């Protein structure tokens, strides 16, 4: 939320410099755009000139033919202006779109390289806003904004110079209201800015609320929270409305105000024309032209205050985007990575300490893993057991280097994983995550994740191995059946099977199964175990499970408790040891034992 409160100035030099960097590839287009805009303004500014000539020269001299020539010339100018305006409008849009595209891709790629620590902290809704909405706002600035500001300024300059060459006294008179205008605008900006900030905050609140309550609607309904949620929403919604109404007030005051100041200028011109008439320096044509200049002068000024909004929103958005781009929570690859091609899969944790939330001192740090050391030989199957929250998932997170350890080191085949490129490392590891995630799309693309090197046969083979083939074939469309958002129309176990198949399809040297079969019935689970037994030969696997039958084949069982390793050994050894594992084992089987002995 706090980020939505950022409310830059309408112009911030350092932000602007950074933004201009994105325009650089298109700088010549921008120059062309400005030239065209100036041309348009120039042609716009000479319009009253034609009126003046028509009235003061042609009509005064009763020259009908001259009038026709003037009219035709005017028409020609209008045509030319129209054509240039068209090209310019398209050109500016083109510049804007190109720039935005580059920026948007940069933001997206930047997000792809953030570490999970970043995603722990940043709500996804907010990140999506950065990628789509905030860049979109910049588009307006890049396209109409920059070029139009220049063109408005040039228009104003053009009109001013024409006014001064035509009659400097009248020019000064009509400009005498400017201080009033500047002061008014200054007041307006201050108020409008506050109102805008408030609106922004409320919009962000509405979005967050909506997003969360739409995804969690089922919970809301089952827990009879509809009314309460609705009340909460009404509150936010009302705050949003009120903020907007406040800002309407300022605009309602500002625009008529500007018009009024313009009218004062008109009054002054007419008054002065009368005063000056006797000296005879003023012609009727001049007055008419000035009245038109006045109109034309006021439009860009009005525009500029509108542009002010665009610039302000753009600055705020760009500040948020740059803040994101400046984020450093990434895990960087080593400069001289160790090649990691032929992997055997021996894993070693050496005195690893890890915390998700690091405090300033050692004591303040919430250690999740404390001095964890273990070894898993290449080709071995190791199981992790322990109470919930003991740190099992954390170990797998560290092995994939989703997070970096604070102390100690993790070695694969004797190489510290910090010396390997992350992509290289992860290519050899496939992990079935505890929290299953399916993408919307189809079944087969959820198994191969769009990887063209994994053909359909491999996808089906993987599905067969985990026993998912049967239910997939029964879906309308089979492997091409649609998968809804997060796999909403599949049973939880089915989703887990697909996520399992995904890991197998990638054919890894190291396989991590984090509660991969927790929602799957024992029969299917055992079938899977038999099926992957052959597949796993020669590969290292890590199995995390609470159902002890899942890990019966593990060569090594590692028992964790509150972030520490308490017991390591085979099933037999651990039972004999009579520790935590023995207790867990007894709990799961004691009734059966009783039954057997009875």
């Amino acid at each position, binding site marked *: 939320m706090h980020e939505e409160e950022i409310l830059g100035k309408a112009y911030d030099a350092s932000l602007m410099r950074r933004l201009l960097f994105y325009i650089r590839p298109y700088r010549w287009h921008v120059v062309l755009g400005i030239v065209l805009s100036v041309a348009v303004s120039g042609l716009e500014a000479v319009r009253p000139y034609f009126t003046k000539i*028509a009235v003061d020269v042609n009509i005064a001299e009763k020259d009908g033919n001259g*009038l026709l020539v003037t009219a035709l010339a*005017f028409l020609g100018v*209008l045509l030319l202006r*129209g054509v240039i*305006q068209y090209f310019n*409008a398209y050109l500016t849009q083109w510049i804007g779109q190109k720039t935005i595209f580059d920026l948007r*891709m940069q933001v*997206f790629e930047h*997000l*792809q*390289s953030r570490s999970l620590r970043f995603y722990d*902290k940043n709500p996804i809704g907010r990140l*999506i806003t950065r*990628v789509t909405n905030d860049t979109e706002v910049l588009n307006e600035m890049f396209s109409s904004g920059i070029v139009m500001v220049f063109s408005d300024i040039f228009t104003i300059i053009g009109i001013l110079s024409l006014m001064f060459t035509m009659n400097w006294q009248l020019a000064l008179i009509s400009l005498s209201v400017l201080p009033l205008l500047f002061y008014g605008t200054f007041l307006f900006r201050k108020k409008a800015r506050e109102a805008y900030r408030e609106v922004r905050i409320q919009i962000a609140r*509405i*979005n967050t609320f*909506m997003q*969360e*309550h*739409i*995804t969690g*609607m089922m919970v809301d*309904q089952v827990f009879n*929270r*509809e009314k309460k949620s609705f009340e909460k929403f*009404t509150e936010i*919604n*009302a705050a949003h409305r009120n903020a907007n109404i406040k800002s*309407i007030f300022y605009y309602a005051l500002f*625009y*008529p105000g500007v018009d009024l100041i313009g*009218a004062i200028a*008109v009054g002054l011109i007419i008054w002065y*024309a*009368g005063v000056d*008439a*006797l000296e*005879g320096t003023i012609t009727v044509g001049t007055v008419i032209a000035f009245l038109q200049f006045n109109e034309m002068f006021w439009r860009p000024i009005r525009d500029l205050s509108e542009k002010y909004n665009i610039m302000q929103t753009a600055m705020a958005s760009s500040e948020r985007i740059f803040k994101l781009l400046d984020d450093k929570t990434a895990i960087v690859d080593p400069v001289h990575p160790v090649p990691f091609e032929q992997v055997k899969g021996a894993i070693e944790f050496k005195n690893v300490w890890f915390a998700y939330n690091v405090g300033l001192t050692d004591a303040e740090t*919430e250690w999740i893993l404390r001095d964890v050391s273990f070894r898993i030989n290449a080709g071995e199957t190791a199981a992790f057991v322990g*109470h*919930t*929250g003991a740190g099992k998932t954390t170990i797998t997170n560290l092995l994939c280097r*989703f997070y970096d350890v604070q102390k100690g080191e993790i070695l694969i085949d004797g190489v510290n994983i910090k010396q390997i490129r992350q992509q290289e490392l992860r290519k050899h590891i496939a992990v079935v995550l505890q929290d299953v*995630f399916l993408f919307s799309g189809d079944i087969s693309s959820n198994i191969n994740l769009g990887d063209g090197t994994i053909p359909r046969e491999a996808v089906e083979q993987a599905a067969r191995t985990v026993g998912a083939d049967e239910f997939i074939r029964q879906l309308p469309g089979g492997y091409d059946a649609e998968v*809804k958002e*997060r796999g*909403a*129309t599949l*049973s*939880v176990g089915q989703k887990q099977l697909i996520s399992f198949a995904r890991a197998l399809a990638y054919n890894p040297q190291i396989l991590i199964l984090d*509660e991969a079969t927790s929602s799957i019935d*024992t*029969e*299917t689970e055992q079938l899977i175990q038999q099926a992957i037994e052959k597949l796993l030969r020669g590969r290292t696997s890590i199995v995390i499970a*609470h*159902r002890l039958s899942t890990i019966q084949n593990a060569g090594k069982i590692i028992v964790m408790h509150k972030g520490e390793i308490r017991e390591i050994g085979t099933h037999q050894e651990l039972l004999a040891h009579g520790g935590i594992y023995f*207790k*867990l084992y007894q709990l799961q089987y004691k009734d*059966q034992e009783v039954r057997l002995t009875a």
Partner: protein
Amino acid sequence: MKPLLRLLPYLAKYKRTLFVGFLTVVGSNIFTVLPPLFIGEAIDLLKEGLEAKSIGGTDLVTYAVGIVVFFLIAGTFTFFTRQTLIVVSRHIEYDLRNDFLSHIQKLSLSFYQNTPTGDLMAHATNDISAVRNCLGPGIMYPTDTILAFTMVIAMMLRIDWELTLLAMIPLPFVSFAVYRLGKVVHKKFEERQKQYGEMTTRAQENLSGIRVVKAYVREEYETGLFRTMSFEYLKKNLVLARVQSIMWPLMFLLVGLSLVITIYFGGLKVIANELSVGGLTKFLIYLTMLIWPMIAFGWVINILQQGAASMDRLAKIFDTKPEVQDAEQTDHTITEIKGAIEFRNVSFTHKGAVRASLSDINLMVPKGATLAVIGYTGAGKSTFVNLIPRLYDATSGDVLIDGRNVKEIPLEVLRRNIGYVPQETFLFSDSLAENISYGTDNGTEEHVRDAAEISQIARDISDFPLGYATMLGERGITLSGGQKQRTSIARAVMRKPKILILDDALSAVDTYTEEEILKRLRRIMKDRTSIIISHRISTVKNADMIVVMDDGKIVERGTHDELVERGGVYAELHQKQLLEQELENL
């Protein structure tokens, strides 16, 4: 534009303010049209004065002051126009958004399973904005345009009717161009919006699944995919720009044509002494006064079209009938339930599915009993329990509670008495305490602690530096799998429900903790009904009745002992878990 008619009830609510607003529009128009009259008179006076060399500044002061005063009055009116019409549009936006939420709150689970979140978000934000956007200007500018038009033209006719007609020639073309272009723009705009939606959805999918993306090194692929979508969006934008860019130049050109005509023919008339220079000036000023309404007209048509398209999309949601809701058969005298559950010949097929997920289920669970459900993946266990809080309604057959059809029990009463732990945990990004007391109105801190103790999350929470005030990430991201599940159990237990449903809710919990939880649940659920789905024999073995499901049917039922005796599916499952132990015993 027809969809916009649905807004009438909303407008009716503010008809007074709208009427006042309408009057101010009329007022501001009258006072904007008059000043050029003064200007024209002033010019004439100036011209005469110049020719006669007998004019003093004071003669023109009246005019000058008149102009300013009129603008002041017009401006005051405009101020009130904005304060009424635009403010009303914000009120309507507020009403509309509230109604939207309250409507989608009634829609059922199957709707949410089949509608992407991104779409609903777009409705709640973009579409409602577009509708609002067309309201203020949609009322203000047409009124403005029509009034300004008639008045200006009346004025122009008074000056010179011939010249007026001549100057009007290009105007029909303006409207026609606006209409035609508007249509194309609208179509291209919709295409662009659709692409924007798809691009947003892609970003959402990618970021929600970032853990998978990273684990499988799919960053480059995802970036490529996003680049394609983003580039497509760029192209759609440029197509739109190409059409939109024609709009303004064409407009100016056509209006400019009017000016040219006026200058030439008006000039000839002045030369022929049929018109004064002042008259011509006034005429020119009036003509420029038409530029804005003309442009506004085209613009208004566009935003009205966009508003109509958005309203149409909203209407589709508003017209979606909730599948599950109170109806005539609801008996509002029911305010309590006891908890006896019965399924009678219940079958169920999911929307869009070809196969039935439940077929012909018959089952009775007496009040206070514990039912355990075990069965294969995809057998229909979740579907089965989802019928009890009416997340779905049975396709055929009846679900009864205390002998009454669930459809007769007010939905509110039914759900208030059920504690439901869904198979997939959903937590809100709020504090732990808020999450646990989510389903209760008057939960004290003590209640929260009790619930946390029963679900065995209390000890974990006491380890967190902030305890119950710990803020969770989206969907509870910063908790471990088992911690999430236990928080979800605490939330259900906190309601002291008559019926407790645990849908595989202990799958991420170790056996020790599980046993502790079950022990406590047995105590508090003594007189209440519980339904527990699990894959672990150790979880189900103590239930009063166990049913085994396969392919949407109940294939076995009985107590643990009975089922083991029978030697069917259950016994086999049991055997498989024993197998290991026997091996150990060897």
